[in-house]
């Protein structure tokens, strides 16, 4: 097939008749589960992820333990709580492909996303399901290994109930993060190249998301800003719960951000798909 001289608008498959939201969710569970199984089956990749996660967590927790000292605190957290904070925050972030934004952007700018538009399910829904499935599969390994390492370094989790809430919060944080990365990467529909943005996004999560430091460390106005941004739902919320502090309200805030960001991702992808033109056959 010869390539057309100009770009051609990509046809979008109409929604299949009788597709209820519940049915969509059930269908999305299949690629999500498959992605999880694949991640867990790739032993080499999994070991690499776990070792990298352990490295980062051990270094950060060592820094905060040294800052707190054996019996002191930093912004109300003891050395043991800061250790659990570091491991939970790192697990929430390390479980997601570091360059996910770049990868989505390349799929959009190269036009390969066009093939996905022929499916009877929204592109962004399938992508969110697959990436969340991957991340949650990896998260299982990180939580198991990370909990063991944190326990060895700092003793048992500060509070069992909060520990359970932290597990739910971790899962929510991961999906919020994946959705937000799709929103950012959708800029590729207009800009074509979003390679530099993953750097900036990642660093924002590091600071405003509370991945490198508890948000209580930030000075007044910056802390308020961070608490009103979606990034806090990605690392700070699960990490704070893992320290035995915070309430279930954090889960509600995360759920709120999840709804907002999934809706935003669906909106920007739907708009982007309408203006997508692909050259070549």
């Amino acid at each position: 097939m010869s390539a057309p001289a100009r770009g051609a608008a990509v046809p979008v498959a109409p929604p299949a008749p009788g597709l209820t939201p519940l049915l969509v969710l059930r269908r999305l569970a299949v690629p999500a589960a498959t992605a999880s199984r694949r991640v867990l089956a790739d032993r080499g990749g999994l070991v690499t992820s776990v070792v990298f996660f352990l490295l980062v967590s051990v270094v950060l927790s060592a820094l905060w333990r040294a800052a707190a000292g054996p019996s002191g605190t930093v912004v109300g957290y003891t050395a043991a709580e800061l250790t659990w904070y570091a491991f939970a925050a790192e697990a929430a972030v390390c479980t997601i492909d570091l360059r996910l934004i770049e990868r989505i952007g390349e799929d959009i700018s190269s036009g390969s996303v066009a093939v996905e538009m022929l499916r009877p399910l929204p592109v962004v829904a399938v992508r969110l399901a697959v990436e969340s499935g991957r991340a949650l599969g990896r998260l299982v390994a990180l939580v198991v290994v990370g909990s063991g390492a944190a326990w060895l370094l700092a003793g048992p989790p500060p509070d069992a109930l909060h520990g359970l809430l932290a597990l739910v919060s971790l899962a929510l944080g991961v999906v919020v993060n994946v959705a937000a990365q799709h929103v950012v990467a959708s800029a590729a529909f207009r800009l074509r190249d979003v390679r530099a943005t993953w750097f900036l996004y990642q660093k924002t999560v590091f600071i405003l998301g509370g991945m490198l430091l508890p948000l209580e460390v930030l000075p007044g106005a910056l802390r308020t800003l961070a608490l009103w941004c979606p990034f806090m739902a990605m690392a700070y919320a699960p990490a704070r719960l893992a320290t035995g502090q915070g309430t279930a309200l954090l889960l509600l805030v995360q759920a709120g951000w999840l709804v907002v960001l999934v809706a935003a991702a669906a909106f920007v992808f739907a708009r982007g798909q309408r203006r997508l033109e692909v050259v070549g056959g």
Partner: protein
Amino acid sequence: MSQTLAVVRAAFTDATARPAAFWTQVGAMVANDLAMIAFWILFFHQVRSVRGWDADRVFLLFAILATAAGIVLGFLSNARRIPELVETGSLDEALSLPMSPLRYLLVRRVDTVNVGDVVFGVVLFLVTGHPTPQRAALFVGGVVVAATLLTAFLVTLGSVVFFTGRGEPGALGMHAILLLAGYPVDIFTGAAKGLLYTVVPAAFVAAVPARIVDAPSWRDVALMLLATAVFVVLARTAFGLGLRRYTSGSAWGRG
């Protein structure tokens, strides 16, 4: 030597062929490094010092790390790509040239994004490192030795691919040494600290050079040179022995 310079020139021309893209990449990396500085400012806003490390010392450490890592990952960027070059058969082009394959590979490619680290590291030293002629000379010397050690470490780990067929140790090793070098070495104790002076020599990439700039001592200089010499010998040996086992041939032959 003239062959090496010709390859370096070609690599530079290639990297700067699109000036707009070049400066965008450099700017992105500077922004990236600024975020880490923001972290340390916030950290030391709450915690005045950690085991003798205050903001000034950590900025000096970060300046040395950014400059040394920028030189290695930017100007000698293939140091971290040996597994990829071996796995894809891209090593073949280096074997037919009338110069050392390792030297050719190291200078063959410039990664523009990491050039931003060099710019950032030097500016950070000039702004926060209290530069005097002596401190500047020690900074330059420390960066050169640290960059040599980092290159040798990456080549050594990358060469594992010749023997195991797996590139993960190289990638993990790079992340590990850069991560560990970015924090004050004294936050670690016992065996973990010992590892940073031996197996993963992260201490010699930033903490020891920073100590030399702040309080020069012949003992630290000798230790650093010794560690670098050991890893250079290891790198040359591992790459040389690995090359003898390299039989993958051209990527074209893989169908």
